[in-house]
């Protein structure tokens, strides 16, 4: 019982920290994924924008879904949402609380990806180099319209033979990178201010409802864990009883068949108990065969 209490406390205190840990790991994984991904802009007029914006927005969707999948609480919330009412009322505030906490945690990794992408700048340079106004840049101002699109599309590729020593390419690149980094920092600033305000102003609104919702959402989580634990414990005991019954029924069958004299042996009495009356190669073979061909019914009454 004491052990159960210790496990109780462990789960209670650590459910939130486990989820925060997963959230942090996903954020780190997202940075690692970005650095190990070999970004290679196609440098072709129609493909650039699709590629650039795709790299900026598709992985965040993937990371968001991963954040939802890896979070155990999302399953708990869904079960609570879909369960039939039965004898326990459903509290919408609890479900809302759980939903919002899951969403907040799942949003961290995608936001990290987007910010890292913007601060690095490669995606925006790739996506928007073709939309630049060529008049602003000396090297592109006097080129025919048909060719200028091709040239602008090649700006992200430094090693292309046409772009290798082009100073206007560097100008376009720097310009776009500046915009990209400004956007990245602004988004970061806005998000941090929003998070700060949300945390700071929250006690001013509905504090009691919040405390209740948090308590009951924690409760539902723990109840689920303990139910699974109890089921495991129960199935272990069930199996134990079932096997004991099986051995006893084998023992009785053997006694019926062999009419052996009751044993008065002192010898290894502890061992005799463990042998459960099965003391012969045939008997053991019969037991194993019966176990395979005729498993006992799931009934230990």
């Amino acid at each position, binding site marked *: 019982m004491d052990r159960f209490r210790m496990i109780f406390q462990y789960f209670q205190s650590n459910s939130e920290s486990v989820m925060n840990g997963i959230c942090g790991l996903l954020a780190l994984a997202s940075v690692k994924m970005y650095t190990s991904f070999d970004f290679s802009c196609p440098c072709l007029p129609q493909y650039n924008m699709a590629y650039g914006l795709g790299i900026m927005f598709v992985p965040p969707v993937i990371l968001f879904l*991963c954040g939802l*999948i890896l979070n155990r609480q999302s399953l708990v919330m869904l079960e609570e949402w879909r369960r039939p009412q039965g004898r326990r009322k459903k509290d919408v505030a609890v479900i809302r609380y759980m939903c919002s906490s899951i969403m907040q945690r799942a949003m961290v990794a995608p936001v990290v990806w987007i910010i890292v992408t913007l601060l690095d700048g490669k995606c925006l340079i790739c996506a928007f180099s073709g939309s630049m106004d060529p008049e602003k840049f000396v090297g592109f101002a006097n080129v025919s319209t048909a060719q200028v699109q091709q040239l602008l599309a090649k700006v992200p590729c430094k090693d292309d033979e046409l772009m290798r020593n082009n100073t206007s390419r560097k100008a376009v690149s720097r310009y776009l990178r500046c915009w990209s980094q400004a956007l990245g920092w602004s988004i970061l600033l806005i998000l941090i201010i929003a998070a700060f305000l949300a945390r700071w102003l929250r006690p001013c609104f509905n504090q009691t409802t919040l405390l209740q919702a948090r308590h009951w959402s924690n409760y539902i989580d723990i109840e689920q864990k303990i139910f699974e634990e109890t089921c*495991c414990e129960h199935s*272990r005991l069930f199996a134990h009883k079932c096997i004991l019954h099986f051995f006893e029924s084998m023992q009785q069958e053997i006694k019926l068949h*062999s009419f052996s*004299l009751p044993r008065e042996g002192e010898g290894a009495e502890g061992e005799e108990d463990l042998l*459960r009356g*099965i003391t012969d190669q045939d008997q053991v073979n019969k037991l194993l065969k019966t176990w395979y061909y005729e498993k*006992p019914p799931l009934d230990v009454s």
Partner: protein
Amino acid sequence: MDKFRMIFQFFQSNQESFMNGICGIMALASTQMYSAFDFNCPCLPHYNLAYGLGILLLPPFILFLLGFVLNNNISMLAEEWRRPQGQRGKDPAVLRYMFCSMAQRAMIAPAVWVSVTLLDGKCITCAFCTSVPVETLGNASHPYLSKEEIQRVLARIPCKEIYNGQQLIANEVAVRYLRCISQALGWCFVLLMTTLAFLVRSLRPCFSQAAFLKSRYWSHYIDIERKLFDETCAEHARSFAKVCIQQFFEGMSTDLVAARCHLPRKVPADAGEAAEKLLGITDQGTMNMALKSWHRCKPPLHLHPPALSNGNGWAGEGQPPTHPSVPRRETAAYYSWV
């Protein structure tokens, strides 16, 4: 027994995390395998496609099978599937649950291989370099080059050192194009897999939660029952062996006493446990004879009450002890030493 129970509970609660761990290790192993593999495009017209697609699709198949092989529960599933019904009904939902959970875990490493391959781009570049649209990306105005020639030149795109078609289409342009397509495919594949996983996980509580709880309970039960049965059999075998060997030594010592017409030596009252454990064998000659007999003529697998065994050789498979046993004699039976 208490220690056993604790270890049991640990494995039980951690069976899932143990299998998740193996799953994660295989995913890491698959990325490591890919980076260690030395990709070598043949740069020949028809071989490129075969090589590229082979590297893309064959290792995932191997990893999928390996995922099943490394999963301990596969034998449990097979056993439950093939067992005769007997007194216990078979529930197809439980079998389905076990199979689905194993298949889901086995799918992870192949999916990781395919994603990493597509995101890296070498395979697709190798496989599809002959299908690059030369009209849009390069100069298709080479009338003196026949179709086969063009194919041969394009096939060399992945091998920069021997590429000789710079006038036809620039190598970097073609490689960038193919890589862009490959990476787009890779990300779409990852998005698709993640969406599928999310749907599978989130639709289940909406539709079949009760059935799911039932299947999960009984699949755990089958696993635990099997382990407990193996434990019980192991305990039984241990006790069986102990009693068998004890009876062997007792038989030996009584037999030798009868053969030498010695009175059984009285164990001095204060000799204690050690003397009892000697089982009546107290000199080199006797011990050697005991060892020789153990090797040449092992006792039958038939334990008797403290009176002596009365048979040699193996009890046959099809001979259950159905006849009432002969009243036992208290004196030694004759052994043959052969």
